[in-house]
């Protein structure tokens, strides 16, 4: 695509902002200060207006310095409100954000109504107008961005430490307050870099959204910074290109939506923290528990009847045991039938030999655990069933072998019922069909 001069400026500015925003935002996110960035960007507005009133020029440097000063004043006000009054942090942020912004609006409208003030174009700081980025704006942005990155690099180790273990940093004698001040200063600087591109409202998203997306993929701060910078830069570039090629498509909102889309994908699909995977895992566990419970219920019904371990059990009887719905139970039964663990005839179920063996393993875990609780932890035998209901699904074969060893290869559980023997041991073969158990 052929880029015009303006489009090139926008592309450079948005990419630069995305990169530094993502990196600094990562610190804000980890330090649970996500919304401080929001307060700072709103607080910067009166600074821009005051700088214009004082200098009377639209040169980006004084405006940026004004924004920087006001941003610092805003962050100090939040701190002071929390420390010196009973106002909580969320209200303090809300107060600074809205009152500073109100002051900014008063100054802005005042300037606009001054003779000749209408042409100042200060209102681009509200929503950001990336298209108005000039060579000189880019220079200021690049200088500030570079300063932020250099300072971050110099104090990386210290900043990492105060982010993750403030108390430890303090005990090492690090100037924790000063470092926190530095971090806030860097954050304010990034906000100033971004104001003209995305505006006060959306600034917080260029900080937090890429960082939140990056967080899902890694547990290492270094990688998180790299990823967040990358996501930020990529969404910045995408936003700039999209708004350059489609009419009436503002840059800032597109940047935010691209980053938000990346975040949603990350939340869903990241390899370890991803929600889809967690959901599948949870569902898998749930289904396994249902299957194991059904096998065990069939086994127990046969055992209680003392006639036929492969006895046909009607579904309504099984529904009553756990208060399960008919549909859910039949779905579980179908799955087990497909695995060859049980067979069904007109809403009655019976175990196959293989199913019997599986059921035995579950019952074995259950009864060994009950025995362990009564013997070792000296719990009363009528208190152990519920706990065993949960543990039978969690114990591994190794755990069971050890447990059996520990308990001296017992034959009956605390209620006097037989503990099924381990598979492939003498007497471990399942009874053949039709044969009655003693």
């Amino acid at each position, binding site marked *: 695509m052929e880029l015009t001069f303006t489009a090139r400026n926008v592309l450079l500015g948005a990419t630069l902002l995305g990169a530094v925003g993502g990196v600094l935002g990562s610190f804000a996110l980890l330090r649970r200060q996500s919304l401080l960035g929001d307060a700072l960007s709103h607080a910067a507005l009166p600074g821009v207006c005051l700088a214009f009133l004082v200098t009377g020029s639209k040169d980006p440097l004084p405006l940026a310095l004004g924004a920087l000063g006001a941003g610092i004043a805003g962050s100090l006000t939040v701190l002071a409100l929390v420390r010196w009054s009973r106002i909580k942090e969320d209200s303090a942020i809300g*107060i600074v954000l809205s009152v500073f912004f109100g002051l900014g609006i008063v100054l802005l409208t005042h300037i606009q109504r001054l003779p000749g003030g209408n042409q100042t174009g200060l209102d681009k700081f509200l929503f950001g107008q990336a298209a108005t980025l000039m060579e000189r704006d880019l220079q200021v942005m690049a200088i500030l961005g570079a300063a932020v990155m250099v300072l971050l690099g110099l104090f990386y180790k210290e900043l990492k430490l105060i982010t993750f273990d403030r108390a430890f940093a303090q005990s090492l004698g690090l100037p924790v307050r000063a470092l926190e001040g530095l971090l806030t200063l860097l954050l304010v600087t990034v906000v100033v870099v971004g104001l003209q591109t995305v505006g006060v409202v959306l600034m917080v998203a260029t900080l937090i959204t890429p960082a939140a997306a990056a967080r899902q993929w890694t547990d290492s701060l270094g990688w998180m910074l790299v990823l967040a910078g990358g996501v930020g830069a990529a969404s910045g570039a995408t936003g700039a290109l999209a708004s350059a090629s489609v009419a009436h498509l503002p840059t800032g909102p597109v940047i*935010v939506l691209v980053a938000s889309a990346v975040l949603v994908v990350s939340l869903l699909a990241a390899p370890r923290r991803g929600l889809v995977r967690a959901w599948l895992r949870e569902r898998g566990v749930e289904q396994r528990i249902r299957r194991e419970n059904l096998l065990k219920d069939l086994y127990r019904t046969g055992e209680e009847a003392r006639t036929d371990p492969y006895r046909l059990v009607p579904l309504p009887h099984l529904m009553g045991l756990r208060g399960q719905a008919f549909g859910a139970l039949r779905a579980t039964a179908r799955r087990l039938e497909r695995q060859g663990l049980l067979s069904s005839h007109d809403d009655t179920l019976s175990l196959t030999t293989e199913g019997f063996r599986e059921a035995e393993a579950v019952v074995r875990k259950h009864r060994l655990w009950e025995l362990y609780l009564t013997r070792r932890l000296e719990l009363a035998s009528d208190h152990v069933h519920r706990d065993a209901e949960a543990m039978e699904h969690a114990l591994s074969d190794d755990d069971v072998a050890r447990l059996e060893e520990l308990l001296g290869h017992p034959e009956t559980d605390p209620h006097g019922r037989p503990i099924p023997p381990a598979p492939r041991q003498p007497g471990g073969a399942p009874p053949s069909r039709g044969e009655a158990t003693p």
Partner: protein
Amino acid sequence: MSPTLVVLTVGSLVGASCALVGSFLVLRKMALLGDAISHAVLPGIALAFLLTGGRAALPMVVGAGALGLVTVFLVELFNRSGRLAEDASIGVVFPALFSLGVILISRYASQVDLDLDCVLYGEIAYTPWDVWLVAGRSLGPKALWVNGAILLLDLALVTLFYKELKLSTFDPELAAALGFSPVLLHYLLMGAVSVTVVGAFESVGAILVVAMLVVPPATAYLLTERLGRMLALAVGIGVASAVVGYFVARALDASIAGAMAVVAGSMLAGALALSPSHGLVARALRHRRLGRWLTGRIVLLHLRSEGSPVSRDALRERLGWTRGRSRRLSGILHELETRGWVTRETEGLRVTAEGARAAEEHGGA
């Protein structure tokens, strides 16, 4: 009704209803959820506008109310998933929704009078001329009707559920144990916040709504310990900010909504300094009084244990006081003298029988 009176009334209605629901936001530490809602309703307003092709009040209120609840739901969804902290959830949800709204407006509604600047800081000055026409007859400014109805709605919510809101705000566990559904109350309150925000949106804009939601309640919070009084004070402060803000804006020839926020902020600063219970001045005075009292006791106890008169310099030296502190000492000694607890003799200071008793009464050993 004169235009000035309309603007003042609309401002007062907005101030009152925001203060009413905002008080609960501040007490429940959800001020920033209010901030999020106030931004996130934008796509709801834009959609209502695009679907109905006009600025009818009801679709906008419904659209914005729905989006407000979507915001609350999404923030909770992200937060509950355990992957994002609450503040981060707020910080990612509302800019995304706001962006959606901005894009909708600038792509599809840029020719019509849904102005983006107006979204940010409102134009309450225009409300007198935006009248409600029914069958060709004017029923007066629309904003009056809308914001009046919203205030009534908020009042109804707060009076009907006062007990429930109070309990679930201050003791959510007990409220849940007593069988009030915290989730239902939460969504009810957030629904009210959304509707209130929409009403205020057109008059004061997305960001200054936050000023009206948070600042007057926070100010009232500095002035009282009782919920009922806090609500009344917050409403009063909200209305006062609106009225004073209007005149400040007229004097400066600047945005009315902005001036309202600044006035509310100044009132907060005033309360912060001067509140009788929580103000910085009152606290400093209390601190000073306590310090003087303590120093007086120490002097009395010391003189009593000495028995014989002690010179001021000796006293200062023995108590290990620096020069700065000893300057305050003369004032304290003067007070002890006028009370008749200490007498000044040629050899130095001596404690009287009364002074010795006073020292004992207040915790002397």
